[in-house]
């Protein structure tokens, strides 16, 4: 099942301990507490559940939902 932007926000919110509504799509998620361990856990989850092929560096290089969506095959 392909990812959606909403699902990405929900998953990011989950690892950050925040509410999905508080996760912006266009801001640097590092400022919200996203770190390498959390990116890896997201990546593992998405690889397992959604067949995502992006690498750690891909996600870490531009840590924002908007930038991730195309790499993660998510429709807006």
């Amino acid at each position, binding site marked *: 099942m392909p990812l959606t932007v909403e699902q990405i926000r929900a998953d990011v919110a989950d690892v950050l301990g925040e509410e999905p509504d508080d996760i912006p799509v266009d801001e640097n998620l590092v400022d919200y507490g996203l770190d*390498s361990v*959390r990116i890896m856990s997201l990546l593992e989850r998405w690889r397992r559940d959604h067949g995502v092929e992006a690498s750690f560096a891909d996600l870490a290089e531009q*840590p924002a939902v908007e930038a991730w969506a195309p790499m993660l095959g998510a429709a807006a």
Partner: protein
Amino acid sequence: MTTLAEPAAHELPLTAAQSGMWYAQALDPESPAQNTAEYLEIHAAVDPHAFGEALRRVAAEADALRVRIADGPDGPRQWYAAPAAFPLEVLDLAEDAALAWMRADLARPFDLAAEPPFRHALIRVGERRWFWYQRVHHIVMDGYGYSLLARRTAEAYTALAAGADPGPSPFGSLADLVAEDAAYRASDAFAADREHWAAAFADHPEVITLAGRTALPSRTFLRRSAHLDPEATDKLKAVAGSVRATWPEVLIAAQALYVSRATRTTDVVLGLPMMGRMGSAALRIPGMVMNVLPLRLTVTPDATFAELTRQVVLGIRAARKHQRYRYEDIRRDLGLLGEGRALTGPLVNVMPFDYDLTFAGARADAHNLSAGPVEDLTVNVYDRTDGRGLRIDYDVNPALYADAEVAAHQERFLDLLGRLAVADPHARLSEHGIATELERAEVLLKFNDTARPVPPTTLVGPIEARAMRTPHATAVVHGLDALTYAQLDARANQLARHLATLGVRPGALAAVAVPRSLDLVVTLLAVLKAGGAYLPLDPDYPAARLAYMLEDAAPACVITDVADRLPDTAGVPQVVLDGLDLSAYLTINPPRALTPQHPAYVIYTSGSTGRPKGVVVPHSAIDNRLRWMQAEYGLEPSDRVLQKTPSGFDVSVWEFFWPLREGATLVVADPGGHQDPDYLARTIREQAITTCHFVPSMLQVFLGAAEAAGAAGPLRRVFCSGEALPRETAADFHRVLPGVPLHNLYGPTEAAVDVTYHACEPGSSGPVPIGRPVWNTRLYVLDEAGQPCPPGVPGELYLAGAQLADGYLGRPELTDERFVPDPYGPLGTRMYRTGDLARWTADGEVEYLGRTDHQVKLRGLRIELGEIEAALAADDTVNGAGVLVREDRPGDQRLVGYVTGSDADPKALRERLAARLPEYMVPGAIVVLDAFPLSPNGKLDRKALPAPSYEGAAARAPRTPLEETLTRLFAEALGLDRVGVEDAFFDLGGTSLLAARLVTRLRETLGAELTIGTLFQAPSPAALAARLEEGGAADDALGVLLPLRATGSRTPLFALHPAGGLSWCYSALLARLDPEQPVYGLQARGLTGVGELPRTLEDMAADYAAQIRSVQPHGPYRLLGWSVGGVVAQAVAVRLREAGERVELLALLDAYPSDQWRGLAVPVEADALRALLRMAGFDQEGELTTEGVLATLRREGSALAGLSQRTLRAVLDIVVNNARLMREHDTRVFDGDALFFTAAAPREEDWLTRKAWAPYIGGTLENHDIDCLHQELTQPERMDEIAEVLRARLR
């Protein structure tokens, strides 16, 4: 590190991250500490050719591995080097040998300027098992960089092994990294980040370290590996999930909790190494990017673990926004660099990802060998997918931790993690201690196994029993007076019966204000016999304090010796012994309903704050204390115990009553006698005292008394208590009184005199323990959450058991505050909170570490004054020492040392102290006292110590040419006009950059082996000179041969002294000539004031020629001389030629042959003074005096100002003698060339001309005019010109 004048093309500056590493390496250029290394264990046969090819390819793709790095004129640079021999070894070794080989390789430093900054090895350890080892200098690679290299290597090898092409490089360029770094440092974000960190640490939080001290980084680290078992690992991860954190965050919180408890601080700063690449192109660039993020946490016992973890999550989140700002920069901004101080406690380095790589399908396991230098402690945590749980390595600086200490910290941390993994994260942190279960049992039970049944007696009962048994034995002696047990008992009984009529009975108080005498003993006993508790009132106490005590205690009566003993008894009835007729009373024991629970005495103690408080001690407590003492030390009827402690100090309680309970004799010292060491020594000898007590500071005074050694005869035991007993005092004791046992006891008044004991052994070292608990007594060392501290960890000392006082008289609230429920004892029991800091030793003794409330904090540094005191006391010139923090001017806190000792010299003492202690622990002033002010009970009276005068003497002048050279180079490096010999480099604005420059310059100038590390430890010219002289052969600054620079590959240059006989002026040449050019000075005989002066200039020349040949047996020779030195040099040259040697350089600095001087008057002293001044490069108009000349020299910072009067006298004699020799000398012909420097400014002696040399120089005389006066030739600008000419000749 080589300095290269012209770096190759394609050069780049270092990034800020690299600069940090560069200066760390510059601290110790030969150190391998900056090496990082790991090996991958590949579970398959490896094709070494394909693997080698993969490695070459990756090394070519990774810019960072292609650089060389060296210092340049504008700081360190890196540039791409031409391909070099590829550093790869292929080996076939057994596993043990392979590990040993890798360890040995790891100990080799890189030469960053000359070789690749990495090295590989492929080691075949089995048919299907290979190790790929790589070592990389940290300056080019960090941990994340390693993972990029490993991944690409796996990819390239896999492709090559399959005959495929590995494809294009995935790496970004080093130039991008440098550009990104430069852009950040020029950005607004950089300035904002700097402000953020400056504000976050503006209050200079305490430097926390588990070691309790700091040290420079070592060249190696000590590693201890362990695993958190898989089950605990899983549970810990589950706990992390339940509090919405990651497991590394939970682990960081746990480490903060551990550090907080182990160091007794709530303000914990941990260092978190971060990959520093989020949102950056650096994610694809192998290089050195990582940074250490300081994470500041508040750890309080009342918070929960979940809250602490949340603090970690939010703290990291906040810090991350400023994470590009370098850790070294924060330290520098805070001024911590110069002091060599850390910013954070332990580093927690979490590596949450395994590489998870395959090499041509084969699995590989990564093994880290070195993660870089370890300043204090780094906890490296790996989550490997090997099913063994979290791997937790403790890497420590071996200068700070012993093996057993690392093991203990690591085991406790794992134990704590295990407990946190199964505990409710919402429980309070106070439920967790850091001791393991085994340690808890040890410190709570095993070390406190003191239960001993005692009969329910009182303090006085056994005395009455003894009086019945041995009525005729001598009970008490004072001077020529004495009482038998029967007499004492009878008199005390009569007085007791009288006191009973005044209301003295069980539970009531009677004050006693009687000076030390037989009457005092009778009176105290009488109060007890009446059933009352006595309240000692030391007649020496200030009247106001006595009045306060009477009012506060409201005793039934007050007993005095004479009517006007007390100024005001506030309505309390008085019993005056003088003239009191008790003959009507019976002499047998009075009736009384006394139980062991009734109070025996009340002693007032002064609290650190507030008014004095009366401690109420019951009979059972002091009875237990005396029963233990008898069992431990076995007093016999033949013993004689000295009573010298004032009765207001509780040590007097055992002095008075122990001997009377055991049938021994109590010998009462004269009032005031306890403060007179000679009196005490005499009394001990004459009265055959076997047992006595000293407060340690008084013991030190006593041991210094002339007659102290005479006390060794009768003494059987000496007790110390009341203050920490310095080891030095104990050592002195064993030296002065060999064979006499010394016992160190400890206890507050609140626990019946003493609760711990330790027998001092001669030859022991380290702090003297206060020892083990006495009978029926428990000691607890508790952390701030009230949890027991394991051995070695400092905590507050609590006391429990039979000896606790009832509490404070009439102060229930204060009593409840200090006597609290004992959670570790039987239900309903109490423990007393001492306010003392202590720790258990591994074998169950306690060490006293100071007061919890007297802890000194200066500029954020926790300072143990005791440590400084011990260092002072260890000095040979010091008898006793005390240190305190004074604030004589508001806001200006200074550490001041006080010492006694007739030979103590504050300045020299400070210098020696600076060699033993960190700069911040060296007192700013040291005051020498005749004696320490002591309080009435014999303790050091800190309040009576005088304020030091800070003016002191002006900075002294340099004493040696080396010091002068150093002050000059310091000034030059710092861009200052002048630097004092004792000014510290970093205090004057020195940065590590400037330090690196200075060190390079010092190495070139002096040819000395030194590092920035040396400069940190010896930051002033004086200290550095001492360090350098220590290292090299002790060069005698007044010797005939003065090695200005003894090292170097070139033919030495010999410089001959001018008229004054000293060659120090030539030190200015050193910095201007090639570092490989050795320079020796020849100096006049007789500078030390010993020996005869030469009789002819030819004698002098012969002597110097022999000296020169002792350094360099054969030519070609290089000679130089200024003024008279030029004439002597020419004479030496003639002699060397006569011996058949070649002289390739004869340099004459404004020197004129004897002909020119003959007939002139021989100089008088005033001229000699002028010569001295000129030798230092100055001149002065008008009449000269010795004082005036010295003042000039001092003002100008000349080393000559430091000459002793004796040397100065010798110099003046030498000047006069040399003038005579010059006039009498018959110049001979030298058949070679001469190089001449003319001081070309118009001069008074206008007849002087170099043409006068024509008859005596066979070859040519090449002249260079220098636009200055004769005496100005050795000034820096002139020396520049002269050295330029010389350099061309000194190839």
